[in-house]
């Protein structure tokens, strides 16, 4: 059985100074986002536009996808459709085989993480080099990214230094960020120059032009795609936007929400293969049409993967991305993942206090915390709640529907706590592990009211 989010979170928090550092680092990013958003008087209007464009697109998705495919083909891009992750991986493998290619670079694509492309290709004996610095670091360490924008945010510079010492033979104990970055840069330059095939993700695919946009800060998507003879771009089908002018909304929202930058350093527009190059586009469903059919959850497909909800989430900041065990962690991951595998991810919608901060920062206004609440109802209805919780809830529901029984139980409970504090103050009481119990008062409010309230004064 999968380890629960709660158990992995507890393990993460066991190193409290590191948890504090993780929390502060991400909070710093959240504050940068606030500053950037404050800089635009039209921020809330932009969010509204972003939301409406995405809503409109999802409502007319089949038409826009057809339009996009037509235009992309006319531009000379070879378009593939994949029903699921496996099909996506097979398509890419077939292209690689056809060209008998050995050297492959990949810029960041959460979709390929979702489809486990690296593992798939590795099993076939094909090595893919992740070229996003953070992703390269976690790839060296055989870890998954812990954040969709900042994949190695769970690591400190000392960790990176150790990893690079092991894999890039950098000086042991040299934690200087500039030194380490330079080492990665030299290492990756070689990979770019040698690469024959580049895989990239897609941030926005424009229906009216058949082109697509990839946003990076390191320029690694360009470096890969511009040198390789074959470029494969992979996208979930929700990446479509109707018009190029809509980029004016999304490019402004994306980087500000993600890192507080006005725009990503590189916003690369790809329209057609350069002479002699082959350009492929793999459009993936992998559960998205199912989610589109769930009325309560469909608008989760509006997500532009900025991770603002991660950075603001007080639970994510204190449990780390790996505690979610999904390609997309954080609040948005907790409403996307149950769609992919409800049983395995049944605990994720509960890994939230429903504080609502995620919904407030979302640049496309996904009602994330309300969807977390709704997933809880679905998960219980589908029978994925554990039995002790179900019994507890049934008892509670019964008590609250019978006022006199509720009062009796309350009174007995308080008396018991007073007379036998050890009944609640023990290791079986999870609350008591790190918190004191409230002190039981001598009477309930109702008991006080019956003696002192208006009904007795009249």
């Amino acid at each position, binding site marked *: 059985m999968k380890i629960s*989010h*709660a158990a992995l*979170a*507890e393990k993460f*928090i066991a190193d409290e100074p590191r948890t504090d550092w993780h929390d502060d680092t991400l*909070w710093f990013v959240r504050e940068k986002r*606030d500053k950037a958003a*404050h800089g*635009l008087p039209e*921020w*809330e209007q932009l969010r509204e536009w972003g939301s409406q464009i995405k809503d409109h697109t999802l409502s007319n998705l089949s038409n826009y996808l057809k339009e996009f495919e037509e235009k992309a083909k006319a531009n000379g891009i070879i378009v593939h459709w994949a029903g699921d992750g496996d099909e996506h991986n097979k398509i890419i493998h077939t292209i690689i085989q056809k060209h008998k290619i050995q050297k492959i670079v990949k810029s960041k694509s959460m979709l390929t993480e979702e489809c486990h492309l690296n593992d798939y290709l590795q099993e076939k004996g094909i090595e893919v080099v992740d070229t996003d610095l953070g992703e390269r670091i976690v790839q060296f360490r055989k870890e998954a990214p812990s954040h969709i924008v900042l994949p190695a945010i769970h690591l400190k510079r000392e960790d990176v230094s150790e990893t690079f010492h092991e894999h890039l033979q950098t000086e042991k104990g040299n934690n200087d960020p500039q030194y380490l970055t330079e080492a990665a840069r030299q290492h990756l330059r070689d990979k770019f120059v040698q690469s024959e095939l580049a895989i990239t993700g897609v941030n926005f695919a424009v229906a009216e032009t058949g082109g697509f946009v990839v946003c990076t800060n390191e320029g690694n998507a360009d470096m890969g795609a511009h040198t390789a003879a074959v470029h494969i771009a992979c996208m979930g089908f929700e990446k479509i936007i109707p018009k190029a002018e809509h980029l004016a909304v999304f490019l402004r929202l994306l980087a500000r929400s993600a890192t507080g930058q006005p725009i990503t350093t590189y916003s690369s527009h790809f329209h057609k293969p350069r002479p002699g190059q082959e350009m492929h586009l793999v459009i993936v469903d992998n559960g998205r049409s199912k989610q589109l059919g769930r009325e309560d959850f469909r608008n989760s497909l509006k997500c532009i993967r900025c991770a603002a909800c991660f950075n*603001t989430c007080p*639970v994510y900041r*204190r*449990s780390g991305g790996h505690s979610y065990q999904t390609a997309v962690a954080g609040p948005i991951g907790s409403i996307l993942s149950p769609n992919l595998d409800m049983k395995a991810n049944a605990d994720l*919608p*509960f*890994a939230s*206090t*429903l504080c609502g*901060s995620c*919904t*407030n920062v979302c640049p496309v206004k996904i009602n994330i915390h309300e969807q977390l609440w709704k997933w*809880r*109802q679905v998960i*219980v209805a589908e029978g994925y*709640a554990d039995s002790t*919780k*179900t019994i507890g*809830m*049934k008892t*509670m*529901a*019964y008590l*609250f*529907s019978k*006022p006199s029984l*509720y009062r009796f139980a*309350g009174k007995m409970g*308080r008396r018991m706590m007073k007379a036998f504090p050890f009944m609640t103050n023990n290791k079986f009481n*999870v*609350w008591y*592990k790190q*918190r*004191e*119990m*409230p*002190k*039981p*008062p001598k*009477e*309930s*409010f*109702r008991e*006080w*009211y*019956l003696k002192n*309230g*208006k*009904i007795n004064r009249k």
Partner: protein
Amino acid sequence: MQVALFIPCYIDQFYPQVGIATLQLLEKLGCDVSFPLEQTCCGQPMANSGFASLSKGCDANFVENFSGFDYIVAPSGSCVLHVKEHLQDAAHPEKAANIRKNVYELTEFLTDVLKVEKLQARFPFKVGLHNSCHGQRGLHLSSMTETMTPSFSKPEQLLNMVTDIRLSKPKRNDECCGFGGTFCVFEEAVSVKMGKDRVAEHDDNEVDYISGGDTSCLMHLEGILKRQGSKIKTIHIAEILNSSL
């Protein structure tokens, strides 16, 4: 004006002083307050755990108790938000709709309905205000740091009417305390860590009290403070607004 007082179950059982302060405050301000005697719970514990389907009996009892009043007021943003968003009664849909419309959290009732401009209250202590998420982000009792809207705070507006109070804000003014209903036991480690971090910021401000509009958050913070042996106490905002120290 007929006001029904809704006292959430855990306040009724564990924090009667919060209910008493709320009642006395409303009466001081001239409201005709009734306390429906057969009330129990708003149903939130079940619903937030995914068992909304089980809360029908609880909901029906709520509707039976709280129908026919001009306003329903409770000293809890969380319970009020739950009622506003989720109260259903298949047998009496109109009554349920009326309750959803007329239920108010205490501070918003004071600022928006009673339009209170001064209070005869004195509380000579340093107080750190904890903004509870459901009151703040759900009921919009104050502006939120995430959204780019003009700043305001209904609880602060009221606390500023209290004589001799010194208000302080924690560094992260609207971060969740980690209570989260059953989250506090099912995600115990994260819940406690969140609570400890809230407490630490108020501690940095050397407050005498942490106050707020939700006893649930305060109960969680109080549990942590007591375990730490801290001198800081928790107090519901109604107790401060009703205070004449």
